């Protein structure tokens, strides 16, 4: 980054003494544009000695997926994005038949159960109930008076969302794959932690009169950033990062304007 060509040096106008033409010996002040030497890299040293990097929404050690970082001035945008309260999308993989103490497949085994009575239909019924109760929570934690006409208008469009602190809320769930004993869910949520999602998998198992552990949590969308925008391990170099920042700038700006006004 320091080797890249920097900005052009600042210029300023100075009145320099210069010999006047013709008068021989008398000195005149002539305006001239000269570079400010205090900005020169040989005087100042390398432009970047440390970079301030901030992280967006937390991601567990055991989870994977999109992780948003802000560099330098981008950290201010991070706080704005946090205040937008946009939903995040995860793909959660689960396994029926086991229950562990930390709800993931690497924990200590608590119980093993049968699971051959579980069908896709039963799972979808449970998911519908989860969605319904969370829908109610969405309306209740949004702190809008339900008796007003504006609340009705927002509710019709589906724009009611808690704009402050709230417990984890799941806005949508659906079953992507179902092959006993494994299953995969797509979860859209707000204000959640990955451990909460693993606990939800465990509770789904309990509700179906069996048990389940979570094998995989992968974030595929964080607000406006999707897996396509994210850089994999092989692309963690300066050029790709700069390009990615440039590509996402417009998206972030429009989203912030739309939500925060």
């Amino acid at each position: 980054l320091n080797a890249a060509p920097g900005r052009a040096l600042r210029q300023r106008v100075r009145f320099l003494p210069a010999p006047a033409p013709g008068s021989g010996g008398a000195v005149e002040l002539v305006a001239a544009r000269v570079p400010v030497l205090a900005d020169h890299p040989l005087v100042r040293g390398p432009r970047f000695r440390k970079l301030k990097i901030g992280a967006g929404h937390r991601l567990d050690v055991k989870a994977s997926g999109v992780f948003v970082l802000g560099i330098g001035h981008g950290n201010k945008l991070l706080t704005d994005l946090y205040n937008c309260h946009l939903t995040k999308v995860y793909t959660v993989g689960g396994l029926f038949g086991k229950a562990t103490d930390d709800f993931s497949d690497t924990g200590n085994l608590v119980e093993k159960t049968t699971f051959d009575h579980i069908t896709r239909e039963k799972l979808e019924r449970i998911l519908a109930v989860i969605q319904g109760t969370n829908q109610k929570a969405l309306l209740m934690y949004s702190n809008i008076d339900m008796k007003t006409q504006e609340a009705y208008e927002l509710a019709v469009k589906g724009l009611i969302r808690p704009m402050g602190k709230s417990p984890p809320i799941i806005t949508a769930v659906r079953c992507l794959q179902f092959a006993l004993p494994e299953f995969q869910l797509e979860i859209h949520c707000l204000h959640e932690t990955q451990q909460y999602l693993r606990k939800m998998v465990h509770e789904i198992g309990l509700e179906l009169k069996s048990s389940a552990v979570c094998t995989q949590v992968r974030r595929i969308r964080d607000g406006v950033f999707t897996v396509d925008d994210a850089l994999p391990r092989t692309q963690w170099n300066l050029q790709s990062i700069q390009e990615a920042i440039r590509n996402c700038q417009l998206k972030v700006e429009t989203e912030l304007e739309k939500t925060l006004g």
Partner: protein
Amino acid sequence: QDGGSLRGAMAGVARRLLRRGLGVAAGPPSTRQLREADEAAPVFQYAGKAARRKDRVFVWGFSFSGALGIPSFVRPDAGCKKPRRIQPTPYRLETEEKISSAACGYGFTLLASNTRDITKVWGMGLNKDSQLGFQRSRRDQTKGYEYVLEPSPIPLPLEKPQQTRVLQVSCGRAHSLVLTDSEGVFTMGNNSYGQCGRKVVEDEIYSGSHLIHQLKEFDSRVVQVVCGQDHSLFRTKKGTVYACGWGADGQTGLGHYNITSVPTKLHGDIAGVNIVQVSSYGDCCLAVSDEGDVFGWGNSEYLQLASVTETTQVNVPRHLPFKIGKVKEAACGGTGNIVLTEEGNVFVWGYGILGKGPNLIETAVPEMIPPSFFGRSDFSPDIRVAHVRCGLSQFAALTNRGELFVWGKNLRGCLGTGRMEDHYFPWRVTVPGEVVDVACGVDHMVSMVRSFT
């Protein structure tokens, strides 16, 4: 030399002991040990392949009339517990049989089962007009109970009690109707306006009465019975509608405003039309034909029938020319009406909290409730409303996923959402199961629910 060989022998023994595994090495269990412990763990079975979904009944609302059927709410068992006046969220009611039909009246409830056993109908709540039949009091064998606090069997005078099945029940303000498959309709309760289908007896005392009247004279088998506030409607297999009872608002639809004490056939715009559903709860009535047309008669003070007439009482069934599509089901409330079309859209009109925000108080033309309230979105586009029901000032909608949405005036907690305020748009009721059917009353509701697994 001896010590050396002894030490060698001791070392050899120790090594052999370790090799046999009697001396276990300490430290965290290896993956192989974990896996072996995993496989050796016992497997529990909580539900087998033949596990069936259970049918349950949930009640909520005002409990002091006994209409919820839970005596401990009115008379607590333990001395320290306080009586519960209102049950704001669904509470499970234990029943002996699977309940197939339920109806809520004005302060009382009827539950009916499809069984061939002798006891087919249970009633609870207000019994001051014997709308729950005669409930013999245990303290005084000659008198009956005025308030029945738990579901008590109603003795129906059936000819073949072990063969007849009860299909449906319906409750009005102070009377109730029971529909059987082969023995006609049984009516009980108040008959001061002839709503029980028998001649009005002057100064009849209804409290503690044993009289249950049987109605059999219709042109074909009765397939649906509906109670309005003080009148009764009967729909037969041929698609005709009969009515009896109070008619001052024209709710009997017989062309006059007098009392009718014998079920009489309705004509007007429904003559010759095959009616597939009738509905009433207050003083207005709606009927749906097999072609999706809606007919209405009765009270129109709240603009229920204002689309066809300016008068406030209509005593002859009139066709309501709504351009909303083919209507599948209709429900009447006290001041508002609701219909469900074939596409699964819900339309409301009338007066009161109609479900489109606090600004819509009255309308004569049906307005659609946006389907996004019932859960329909890009994520789940195939959610449809399957049934609509009406209480006196509340509305209820059931979706095809088994979710119950309610809105309207929250009188004494009857909406069941847990909040005591009125709801101006559809709000989900959290029930631990898939809701199959719901019956709405004035201040309480009963739902029939199937468990998830």
